[in-house]
């Protein structure tokens, strides 16, 4: 019962996050490119209910901030005018899925004030908006690549398991080669041989291809193991005794088992693959500015002054924690369900 609870929490969390990423244009108050050069490294904007004079208001509002104090990056609130938080207000134009375009945003404040929920970066771009857009790259590339890897793994693993012999040997040797290289090394090495300066959509596909190529080894091994194990079972032998073809065995007996194992493995590997994208982009070999990904957003945090003074620049990495935990929970539940079935 407790497990079911965890499962539904994790599933809902992931659905919400991914939906928000998909609808980033609408959910985010600003475009990922919108800059405010006068306000670099703005800290997270505070939402107020009580104004400077101590008067209480029923609707949350923000004050405009402006640089002040000794250094360039210290900000003071300007108590002169309140900017209430508004819903469905008009702002930067965007398209969702390349299909719908619009300019209404879920929430925001009127210009010239800005609402940086999670702070702003060096060019005064809203960190929250960029994280949503970045999730489109990081989360979706991870999930797509994991799907690619699972399908590759299913294909190679079941061929190796069903045919056995020399085909099995060949498949497994190739898999071993892929697995033998430390993950980040093979990721970078394979990445190295693909073009670096390309447009964002091509880059996205490149990243998915590289990640998927590097990750199919483990599911292939796993699926092969499951198929080999299942072939030893009496019910598969019995079906052979009824004159079943290889295709029938695969379809009715072996694939359903392998599929379950592969799905579980996929849930395990998605966060690892997401991390792979983050690392590639972090090291400057992935998605490049101005298109955000959690990786290239983090790259800014490598600068010492950013790391010491602007903690919110680490948020893209922190965001990986709940996402990973949710996928882990999903994998745990799938895994234990798999075990109880067999």
């Amino acid at each position, binding site marked *: *019962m407790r497990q079911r609870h965890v499962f539904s929490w994790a599933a809902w969390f992931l659905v919400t996050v991914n939906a928000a990423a998909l609808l980033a244009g609408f959910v985010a108050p600003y475009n990922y490119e919108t800059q405010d050069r006068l306000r670099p490294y703005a800290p997270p904007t505070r939402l107020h209910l009580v104004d400077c004079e101590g008067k209480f208001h029923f609707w949350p509002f923000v004050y405009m901030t402006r640089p002040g104090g000794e250094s360039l990056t210290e900000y003071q609130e300007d108590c002169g005018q309140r900017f209430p938080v508004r819903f469905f207000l008009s702002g930067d134009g965007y398209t969702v899925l390349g299909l719908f375009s619009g300019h209404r945003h879920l929430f925001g404040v009127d210009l010239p004030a800005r609402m940086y929920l999670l702070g702003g970066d060096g060019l005064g771009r809203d960190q929250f908006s960029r994280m949503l857009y970045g999730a489109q790259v990081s989360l979706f590339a991870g999930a797509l690549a994991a799907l690619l890897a699972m399908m590759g793994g299913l294909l190679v693993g079941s061929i190796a398991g069903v045919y056995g012999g020399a085909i099995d040997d060949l498949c497994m040797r190739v898999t071993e080669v892929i697995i033998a290289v430390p993950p980040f090394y093979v990721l970078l090495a394979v990445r190295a041989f693909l073009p670096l300066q390309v447009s964002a959509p091509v880059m996205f596909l490149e990243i998915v291809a590289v990640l998927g190529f590097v990750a199919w080894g483990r599911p292939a091994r796993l699926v092969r193991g499951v198929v080999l194990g299942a072939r030893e*079972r*009496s*019910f598969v*032998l*019995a*079906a*052979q*005794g*009824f*004159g*079943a073809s290889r295709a*029938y065995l695969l379809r*009715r*007996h072996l694939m*359903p088992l392998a599929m379950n194992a592969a799905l579980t493995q996929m849930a395990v590997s998605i966060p690892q693959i997401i991390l792979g994208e983050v690392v590639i982009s972090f090291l400057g070999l992935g998605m490049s500015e101005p298109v955000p990904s959690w990786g290239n957003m983090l790259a800014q945090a490598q600068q010492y002054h950013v790391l010491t003074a602007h903690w919110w620049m680490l948020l893209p990495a922190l965001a990986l924690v709940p996402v990973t935990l949710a996928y882990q929970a999903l994998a745990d539940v799938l895994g234990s369900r798999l075990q109880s*079935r*067999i």
Partner: protein
Amino acid sequence: MTPNPTQSTPRQLLRVRDLCVDYRFASVKVAALQNVDLELGEGESLGVLGESGSGKSSLAHALLRLLPSDASVSGLVQFRETDLLNARAKTLREIRGAGIALISQEPALALNPVLPIGRQIGDVLRAHESVNRRQERDRVAGALREVGLTEPERIMRAYPHQLSGGQRQRAAIAQALVCRPALLIADEPLSSLDTATQAEVLELLRTLKAELNLAMIFISHNAGAFSSLCERALVMRNGRAVACASLEELAETADPYIRGLLFPEAAFLDGCKTPASQPQAGRPLLEVRSVSKRFMQRRALSRSKFAVQALEHIDLSVDEGATLAVIGRSGSGKSTLARCIAGFESPDSGEIVLAGRKHESSPQVQMIFQDVGTALNPRFTAAEVISEPLDIARKNDPLERRKRALDLMEEVGLDPDWQARPSHQFSGGQRQRLALARALAAGPKLLVLDEPFSGLDLALQAQMLRLLLEVQARHRLTCIWIGHDLSFLSYFARDVVVMDQGRVVEHTAPQGLRSSTVPATRLLVEASDRLHAPGVEAVS
């Protein structure tokens, strides 16, 4: 150490009152033991008898408080003067092994695969007594000699996988007895051994009991196993003790459950309308001509191979409608023969001829597998399981196939209402029925049964056998029965072939087994005799 027994109540060793064990699965509470009482004096022994699932093993583990953490125990277990259920962990640890010792079902699994035998026994000794290295060696060697292992030095250095099944069980017994416990609990100690080894181990337990004045609780589903060992027996059913008396008294009760446990063959006969109907001699349906098979085996964890001769020039034939029993110790090649006949292995030389034609693999020969656990795909429903051969052959339309499946369910004694239940929800006996129905759906002429009832208890075996005979008569099936147990043999088999080390060493009628002079046959017969209660054989 435990107190001197003479100071406590004379002779009283173990007292159990109102022992209850519950398991909690999620929110459901399942009672494994309910209000069990028993008493045992020094040197006395008690058999515990019951069908599988009757709570026998829970009793064994509850006495030592070795139950899994989701179990709760209540009642009283008093060993000498210690209340075991409320004892502190330290006291309990001191009693385990030194006061009460347990030998469990699988000797192969009860010994640690990566530690030498000597060290495993030595660790038990050191847990209870302070001994130096030399004393430890001597004591361990002595314990091994005591259980009839003649080369203790070699055994001490050996790892479990280097020993035979019988040697492993002996080593496990030595481990249990090295600290001289007063009570030995043997939880189905014979079930995983072949018949001949079972008899040897039983003999050993009898000698040790006499020599060491051991009290013993011997758990089994087969009264024959302990009839020579125990004065009294406790009969268990659904977690309750239903009777506790001497074997002679029990033999006279009219309770069908107890009678079924004590005299499974008699129970089988009671329900069989035409006992031992021997079919008329017909044309030979299957002929096996000089079949040989060698195996290139891979050892676990390795890629290297070595050859094992499994079958050497086997010749045999089975007449249409008759049943041939192939018996032998494990490793005699009988299962390989079964797989060759069923077409899962192809022989290296020789040929197998079915109804005049060379046979490879066809639905005409169907096999019932030894392992009920993996015989059915756990995701399939009962109806899907049975109609699978029809689905593969694409016989008729789906509706008709479904109807045929339901008919077959009824025929093998399963309620057709269960058609949509997934197969993993069926019990062992029911699964074997499903497997039988599935084999029948393929429309076979020859049925190969590879130790089909080995996982079932005797009463259930009798039921299944009855069903099998009915089905055989109705479908005019020819059967090949593979096994190592001689019980029931004369009721269904017309011929018996005895195999040993890949060869046929004897070919006879079941009645002829008793008078055989072939050593391998004698071994099987003697073992079988020792395992079954005297008087059972008289029925035949």
